């Protein structure tokens, strides 16, 4: 029975509805965390289902859903991000009065991300992207009393809508030229189509799709919304955008380019490669001048999108493998960084300001340690997860005769060291006075747990990389048959 492929979606959508419905109920105080618990249980159940489904590729709903290992692994990454973000939001002021909607929307966004990465059809993929985008528009603006949050929501909505329009236009052209919305069908049609340069409309459709997905992945030159939205949105939501949305967008890139358009690789390789190179350069240079950690992480996420896109640009199976490994590494290092920012935000006003981190490591050495590890890993220092990821991506690039992109990536990384290490230095430098220590709260257990687990994972993913890489290899194999 092929409807088994829908199980992850069934669980997640049911949980979304349940969580939102609890908002209409008058819950006793003992159950006020019910939405969050529903979310965590649903994530755990979905995770169990994907481990059960791991193995042969399954196709369901008349080809609408492709549950191959790539889709399952990306789903796993999204689920981990979701669980972490639910934990990071535990007691978050933004969600305090609206727990049910907040958690429900998080789950809805996660459902959309999962739908995107297991799509077997353009329409399904589009619905997935829309579901995640619309949920995130609202989540960005959920602090309705805070101007910055509303501004972020609005900015994300407007730029996101443009991205959506471009995406659907690209899909329409693709459908017009190939006569099908099925990704398998498109793959066959593209393989038979010959060089795309002789088919301007097909080429245009691929370019439009790349642009639209570039919006979602915040790749240059479609990145302008990122710093403002990342800064304005509630920090757990920012963390979700940085990890979950990025994973979904990369999944879509893999499905449409590495997977479906494999036959036309020569035509789009330079296009994606240029986007990747530009993102690495612009993102790293932009991050250099930031004084706000969230903005800095926004620019860094632009740069990281560039590194990730190397894996798409090479278009090889190894490229996909490296990309997925780097996504996992990126997940843990980004979450670790955001967890510490959230921790600080709960303690002081403007806790996302770099200045407020002065001497923080001396007072909370474990938090300083996790942040330092995250920064070193993002900068690509060995022997941490980020290093192994970059190593594999550069290897994939050189393997595919794209040495130039590896060199640009290497030089851009050298620049990035400055701003990543700045955070680490500030954290361990002496505090001028402890006057700005307004609130000294008990450390929220859930946030600390996420930070510590991610900190350990940053090291563990590198030291015990082989099993993880084996998973990624299985995923990459299922993508390119």
């Amino acid at each position, binding site marked *: 029975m092929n409807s088994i492929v829908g199980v992850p979606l069934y669980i997640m959508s049911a949980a979304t509805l349940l969580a939102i419905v609890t908002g209409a109920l008058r819950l006793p105080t003992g159950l006020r965390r019910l939405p969050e618990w529903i979310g965590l249980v649903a994530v755990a159940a979905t995770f169990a289902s994907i481990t059960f489904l791991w193995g042969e590729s399954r196709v369901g709903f008349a080809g609408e859903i492709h549950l191959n290992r790539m889709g399952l692994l990306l789903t796993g990454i999204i689920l981990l991000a979701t669980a972490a973000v639910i934990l990071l939001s535990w007691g978050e002021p933004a969600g305090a009065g609206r727990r049910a909607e907040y958690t429900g929307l998080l789950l809805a966004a996660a459902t959309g991300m999962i739908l995107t990465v297991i799509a077997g059809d353009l329409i399904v993929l589009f619905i997935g992207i829309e579901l995640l985008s619309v949920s995130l528009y609202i989540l960005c603006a959920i602090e309705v009393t805070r101007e910055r949050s509303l501004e972020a929501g609005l900015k994300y909505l407007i730029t996101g809508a443009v991205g959506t329009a471009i995406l659907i236009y690209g899909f329409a052209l693709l459908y017009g030229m190939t006569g099908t919305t099925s990704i398998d069908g498109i793959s066959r049609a593209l393989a038979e189509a010959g060089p795309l340069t002789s088919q301007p409309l097909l080429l245009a459709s691929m370019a439009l799709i790349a642009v639209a997905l570039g919006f979602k992945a915040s790749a240059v030159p479609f990145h302008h919304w990122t710093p403002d939205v990342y800064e304005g949105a509630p920090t757990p939501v920012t963390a979700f955008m940085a990890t979950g949305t990025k994973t979904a967008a990369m999944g879509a890139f893999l499905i449409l380019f590495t997977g479906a358009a494999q036959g036309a690789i020569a035509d789009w390789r330079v296009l994606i490669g240029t986007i990747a190179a530009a993102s690495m350069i612009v993102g790293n240079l932009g991050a250099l001048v930031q004084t706000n950690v969230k903005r800095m992480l926004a620019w860094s996420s632009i740069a990281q999108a560039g590194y990730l896109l190397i894996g798409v640009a090479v278009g090889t199976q190894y490229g996909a493998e490296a990309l997925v490994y780097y996504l996992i590494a990126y997940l843990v290092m980004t979450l670790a960084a955001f967890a510490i920012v959230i921790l600080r935000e709960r303690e002081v006003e403007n806790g996302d300001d770099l200045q407020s981190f002065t001497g923080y490591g*001396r007072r909370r*050495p474990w938090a300083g340690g996790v942040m330092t590890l995250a920064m*070193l890993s993002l900068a*690509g*220092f*060995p*022997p941490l997860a980020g*290093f*192994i990821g970059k*190593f*594999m991506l*550069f*290897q994939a690039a*050189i*393997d595919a005769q794209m*040495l130039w992109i*590896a*060199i640009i990536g*290497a*030089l851009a*990384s*050298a620049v990035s*060291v*400055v701003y990543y*290490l700045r955070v*680490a*230095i500030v954290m*361990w*430098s002496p505090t001028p006075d402890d006057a700005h220590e307004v609130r000294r709260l008990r450390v929220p257990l859930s946030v600390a747990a996420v930070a510590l687990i991610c900190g350990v994972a940053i090291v563990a993913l590198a030291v015990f*990389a*082989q099993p993880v*890489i*084996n998973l990624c*290899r299985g995923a990459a194999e299922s993508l390119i048959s």
Partner: protein
Amino acid sequence: MPWVSLLVIVPFVVAIALLFVKKDNHATARALAITGALVTVAISIVVVVLFDRTSGALQQVDHANWISSIGLSWDLGVDGISLWLVLMTTVLFALGIIAACRRLPDRANVFLSLLLLSEVGLLGLFTAGDLVLFYVFWEFMLIPFAFLIWNWGGDDRRRAGYTFVIYTMVGSLVMLVSIITTAMLASQHLGYLTFLIRDLEGVPFGTTASTLLFAGFGLAFLIKLPLWPFHGWLPMAYSQAPIVVTALMAALMSKAGVYGLLRVGVPLFPDGANTLLIPIAILALVGIIYGSLLAWRAPTMRLLVGYSSLAHLGFIVLGIMVFDSMAAQGAVLQMVNHGIVVAAAFTIVMVLGRGGGTEDMDRLAGLAKGAPRLAVGFLIVAMAALALPGSNSFVGEFFILGGVFRQYSWMAVIAMAGVIYAAVYMLRMYQSTMNGPVKGVPADGRACELTRSDGLVLVPLILIMVFIAVWPRALVGATQASTDRAIAAAQVAADRPTSQITPLSITRNRP
């Protein structure tokens, strides 16, 4: 026992343990750090005892797969080039930690932990048999050194640390790309992907690729050395770092670059090394002259020693790049000599700075009167630094200059100037601080006199100098097989007459 791996593991474990010591508990931190450093010395002595002096290959290899799907492995071992560097690293770190323990800064446990972590990086680097592992340790040592500058450095520490890190990172990331490219190109020839240096040796790359790859590696090495004109980070880093850290950087970290050249650059890319022989030799010669001149006019003693090492490293690079058996042995010997002498010189600077309250030479004079023991130690170190015949550095420089003269006599003539300058600046430092009327210090400078704990650091260093001076064969005998092996392919590439090419290389099958 995997002794070589233990060399890396023991200080690492101790460094991590130190992080959990309470920050005001100096006694425990001190005991732990010194014990860790001494155990590491003991292990390195075991490695030296077990060393087979007849073999030029990497020995006592500990091999384990790390990430086999991308060709990475944990592969540590020693050969004649690294053997003495390993011993020198453990000894100098032990002495450095003992010196640092005399006056511990705040958060001593972290300070000592970072020192040990940088030792891990250096020991790993000197023993790595896998290019990626080499890179891992190369980067690994950067972070503790940088944080030592950032947290305990002088007033301008932040800028000094950044300059140091950025310079190094540009070089090392280009090296990373070169490493991957090397393995990818070699895999087409070998049929499998590997980063093991011993497997990659002898792979033909073609002159262009070989030159570009050598340049990619060379950039990282020359920045780390540093060689003129890549020394921009040196004055700031050396003058801002805590003096123990400066000493270790000058004595050991600078050897990382030279070691890389001899261990990776020249043997893997003989054609490229041969193409770039003259340009790099010219940089080295300029460095010798330029470094000497800077040292001559340096305002502080610390910078004087720092710039002088710029000149001395130029000698060592020259010794490697002329592909002469004698010069290469001299280069390895001189790496050890320079490390010991620089460490001793910085010990003197440390004592002077502590007692006199300044490292500015013009503000101190006539100290020999109040601190005779210091004056004696200083004189011995100064004589060794200027390579007086009968000192350990003389042996090394003689080997290098002799070898260089055999190949390119004009280079030897220019390099000779550096030997003369060395006398000028070292004697200037000695004279201006020790002789003349007493100036700048209370009570004839008795505060500058060597204490027992200073002696604990300085005396072993002087004994090592004497030992090397009277019996250099003990060192050279163990290195010869390895240095010959390292430069053999380059000698063939440079079309040296067979009489000059060492026997090992003739049996080498060069593609």
